[in-house]
């Protein structure tokens, strides 16, 4: 899932600059993250109205990254959108652009920061799992990704800084290399890790367009 975090209200107010706003949410990731579901969109409306900002309407796209769907749904909100100067999008960075592609002549404001592709540990607790590197090498690491989960992207073992299984950079995060090693130890296959892994091919992380 694409994990997002709502931007600080002060930042949003500055971007909105007291102009009338139409608010857009997303039915998928942003709903699960509680950053842009119906609940959050309605709450945002209330907050803005308390600041005397006119909210002309709102909608939840299904999901916001679906360009053709956006065109269809937004057609039903012509008047509300016409009355708004600013479009506040509570979705991931992709959702924001899929909206701006439809609403050419509006100021589109991204209401969230898009952080990473990660999993939900508990409610409101997310962990980074994938950096979209385009060339997945998790098979070498038994289903654990040292690109996304190690701040140094170490591919040949731990850096030497972890303590009690935690990463030296983020103390409340597990050192992924500690996890990889413990896992192989449990399976009695630690030897498999000894092969040197050569420089990674990053060229596919530059992939800009894919048609399947």
């Amino acid at each position, binding site marked *: 899932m694409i994990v997002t975090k709502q931007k600080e209200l002060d930042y949003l107010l500055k971007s909105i600059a007291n102009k009338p706003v139409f608010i857009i949410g997303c039915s998928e990731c942003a709903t699960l993250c509680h950053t842009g579901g119906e609940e959050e969109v309605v709450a945002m409306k209330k907050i803005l109205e308390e600041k005397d900002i006119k909210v002309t309407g709102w909608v939840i796209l299904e999901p916001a990254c679906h360009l053709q769907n956006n065109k269809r749904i937004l057609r039903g909100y012509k008047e509300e959108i016409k009355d708004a100067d600013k479009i506040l999008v509570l979705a991931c960075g992709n959702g924001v652009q899929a909206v701006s592609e439809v609403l050419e002549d509006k100021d589109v404001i991204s209401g969230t920061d898009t952080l990473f592709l990660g999993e939900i540990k508990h409610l409101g607790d997310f962990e980074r799992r994938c950096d979209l590197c385009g060339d997945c090498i998790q098979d070498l690491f038994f289903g654990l990704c040292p690109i996304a989960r190690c701040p140094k992207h170490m591919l040949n073992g731990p850096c030497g800084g972890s303590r009690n299984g935690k990463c030296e950079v983020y103390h409340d995060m597990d050192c992924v290399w500690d996890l990889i090693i413990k896992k192989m130890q449990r399976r009695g296959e630690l030897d498999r890790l000894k092969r040197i892994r050569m*420089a*990674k*091919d*990053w*060229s596919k*992380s*530059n992939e800009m367009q894919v048609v399947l």
Partner: protein
Amino acid sequence: MKYKSNLERVLVENNFAVTAEVGPPKGADADKVRVKGEILKGYADAFNVTDNQTAVVRLSSLAGSVILLNMGLEPIMQVACRDRNRIAIQSDVLGAASLGIRNILFITGDHQSFGNHPGAKGVYDLDSIQLIKVVKDMRDNGVFQSGDKIVAGKPDVFIGGVANPFAEPYEFRVDRLEMKINAGVDFIQTQSVFNLERFNIWMDEVRGRGLDKRVHILAGVTPLKSLKMTERMKFHVPGVDVPDDVYFRMKKAEDPQIEGFKIALELIDEIKKIKGVHGVHITALFWEEVIPRLVKESNFLPRP
């Protein structure tokens, strides 16, 4: 006035400057740089040493610059944003200044997918405009990008950048130059000029905004060596504009080398007349030996 570099002196004293490019070798042999330095010595005011140009691994621009420096040539060290983050680049700027390098030119750099290590991870922590501002702050205000103070010696360097009058969208080209000037660039070398008409349109606007008074502009000149090279530049190198008449001249030429030289001479002649252009920057890829003749026949000798 105390000048940071010979290049700055030449430009500030209102001479028409000449710079030339020295591409470092694909290997550790310093003599390869020295041989080029010997050929070019006395024919330009300063010499660009490229930084892994076209994303092909070569001897580093810092090392190449020091080799030239030791021969009595003034280097312009190039630094690309592609391979280093702000920590490494600021460190290299300090290192270069400590070794006596007085001109550094900053570019964003060709994407790694065009070079011989397409699997490399691109860095692009800063872009060229941001980097120019960072180095200007290091030099003039004695602070690193983080705001931390430089405690032992500011890098007193003449800051260079590039501009491409031929890149699309044209509407923003002069704006971008202005941004570079506002960021703190001291001199600009342009993309090689083949299309004089477009170059003049760009220069008209540069002068119209008074930008030629705020930065030293050196027009790029590249003598075409062969039809193959002409075709590569016309059809394959992004951002280069080789107009049809130049292309057909090269195509019809009995001896493309002679024709290429002639075209370069004519271009320099025209460029000299353009108000607001303060010099030429000659790039002759793998054909450095042509530069002395080109400089001589353009009446650029002796150098000031």
